[in-house]
């Protein structure tokens, strides 16, 4: 079929050899004239932690709701193993969701909330009791079993929502920005807990977030969504080190985008040039701030590129500092250093040509 779906298929499974659990095939969704998702193909492996990352309005929640069954796709299919998922109502899918605002039943206690899925499945009461107890212990909420949701904190509601989903032993757990309502410290703590819980239970997680840092910390793979289309699907390391597009490079971490022109295997970009085995024509490069160094007087090393400039802004970030350097022709480069005590205002920068990653231009989309 389409090339994008082939790329996504090739990237699936992340080389770990795990079997594919969920496969999204050319899914599209439009609300009236408005196309929210376009030709999305994606595979999720057994036990994988996949994050759908994107800005608000990128369609990430819609994609999740299509998998859960709350929305129907306008085109395409969703398969879980040999079973076609997208033709089934949500209550027949072996998928559970942790909602953004938890959606705990306010008239039921914590315990009854967790038991809900097992009760409607008419499991024997003895089994329900033991599984609920086990699930509550796993999320450290046994002490609040008899409380109503309104009597416990946001972080605790979060844990109950997690227990309520996991107690059903789904094959796939969907999490819709579950940490967005928590404050920063609790959020970091929950990221670690959630990740280790996922390892422990071995269930595949699809985690939706707009926070690139959260995505980097938690995921096996990140699917970067932009205006309803997949920009890149790769491991956090890969997507950071080898961003496929200008958008991916800019959205995940800081970067310098260099617009250049290739002629006769030489890249010419503003004030500097370096050799590269590329066809002639315009080219766009991403250069991470930490790949730029201040020259300390030693001679140039092989494959390195140098440029002179003036420091125009410094931003202290704790362990590192981001320094903006204005070079010739108005080009501004951002450099990451660990402590800038010795940096004068007139500087010379250096980077190795191999660190300038060729990226595709990200066209404007409506």
């Amino acid at each position, binding site marked *: 079929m389409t090339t994008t779906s082939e790329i996504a298929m090739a990237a699936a499974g992340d080389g770990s050899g795990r079997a594919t659990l969920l496969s999204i095939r050319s899914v599209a969704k439009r609300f009236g004239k408005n196309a929210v998702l376009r030709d999305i193909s994606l595979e999720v492996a057994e036990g994988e932690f996949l994050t759908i990352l994107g800005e608000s309005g990128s369609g990430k929640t819609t994609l999740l709701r299509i998998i*859960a*069954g*709350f929305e129907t796709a306008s085109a395409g299919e969703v398969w879980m193993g040999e079973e076609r998922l997208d033709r089934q*109502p*949500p*209550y*027949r899918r072996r*998928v*559970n*969701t942790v*909602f953004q*605002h938890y*959606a*705990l*039943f*306010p*008239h039921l206690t914590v315990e009854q909330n967790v038991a*809900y*899925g097992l*009760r*409607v*499945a008419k499991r024997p009461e003895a089994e329900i009791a033991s599984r609920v107890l086990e699930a509550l212990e796993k999320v450290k909420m046994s002490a609040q079993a008899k409380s*109503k949701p*309104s009597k416990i904190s946001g972080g605790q509601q979060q844990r109950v929502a997690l227990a*309520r*989903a996991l107690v*059903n032993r789904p094959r796939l757990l969907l999490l819709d920005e579950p940490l967005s309502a928590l404050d920063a410290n609790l959020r970091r703590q929950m990221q670690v807990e959630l990740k280790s819980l996922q390892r422990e239970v071995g269930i595949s997680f699809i985690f939706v977030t707009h926070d690139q840092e959260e995505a980097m910390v938690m995921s096996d793979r990140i699917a970067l969504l932009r205006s309803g289309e997949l920009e890149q699907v790769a491991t956090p390391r890969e997507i950071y080190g080898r961003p496929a597009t200008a958008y991916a490079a800019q959205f995940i971490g800081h970067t310098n985008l260099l617009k250049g022109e290739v002629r006769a295997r030489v890249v010419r970009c503003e004030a500097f040039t370096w050799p590269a085995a590329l066809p002639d024509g315009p080219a766009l490069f991403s250069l991470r701030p930490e790949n730029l160094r201040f020259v300390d007087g030693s001679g140039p090393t092989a494959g390195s590129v140098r440029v002179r400039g003036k420091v125009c802004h410094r931003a202290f970030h704790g362990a590192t500092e981001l320094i903006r350097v204005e070079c010739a022709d108005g080009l501004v480069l951002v450099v990451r250093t660990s402590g800038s005590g010795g940096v004068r205002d007139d500087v010379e920068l250096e980077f190795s040509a191999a660190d300038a990653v060729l990226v595709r231009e990200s066209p404007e989309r409506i």
Partner: protein
Amino acid sequence: MFSRAYKAAVTLPPLIWVTVFLLLPYLLMFCYSFWSVSASQTIEHSWNLSNYGQLLQVNVYWQTLLRSMWIAARVTIFSLLLGYPLAYFLSFYAGRKKDLLYQLVIIPLWVSYLVRAYAWKTILGSDGVLNTLLQYVHLTKHPLEFLLYSPFAVVLTLTHIYTPFAFLPIYAALEHIPRNLVEASHDLGATPAQTFWKVIFPLSIPGVVAGATFAFVLSLGDFLAPLLLGGPSGIMISNIVVSLFGAAYNWPLGAAISFCMLLLVVSLLFFSERLEKKWSFS
């Protein structure tokens, strides 16, 4: 914040209004209920409980009170049976037609109560629309007499009139249920029927209690529908109060019955309030 004078200026007028036109009349009525009427048709201001005794001893009074409650109970049940499905459909399935349908439920409330009661008289009478139709299609040979001037006619008319009052609080309660709770229920494997009984209905109980209270209290005190459509067998307690204060000229007994009604209604409101609180979780 607001000055003391400003607060007084805002709160005093309604307070005075309530005192003069509500609390004082109630107090006066309460006093009347202990007085009596002399043979010469004057009010004797002697305090005793004979009016309340009469209420218990004279069959027609307590029987009419019981019948009124039974009529009100039936009106309540039918209003809920009509109002709940309507509210549920509107809130969950009406989509873009929601506002239009909501207005259609409200519009009858703009039409005078009296007109609606008379309309039923025209429909149910022996030369009425219904009887004419039944005879025309040869389902009956003679007009059905039980249709008009019967408790049936009163229940039918009051149900028609008070269903919107039952509908409104139920609709409001259903609208307040976060839709992600319904999704969460489906997500956890509950079928639509299970979701209704385990999530939607329990969360709508405050609305049901409020709606039931409206329908019961309003129809319990109604006197126009029984007057126009009730006939002798469809008389309700308010009709008795009206005649005691009017033609019979026995204000003290009328006041005693009114006070019992008031007590009944206030305790009902008290319990429904407690029930609503118990079942609300916002």
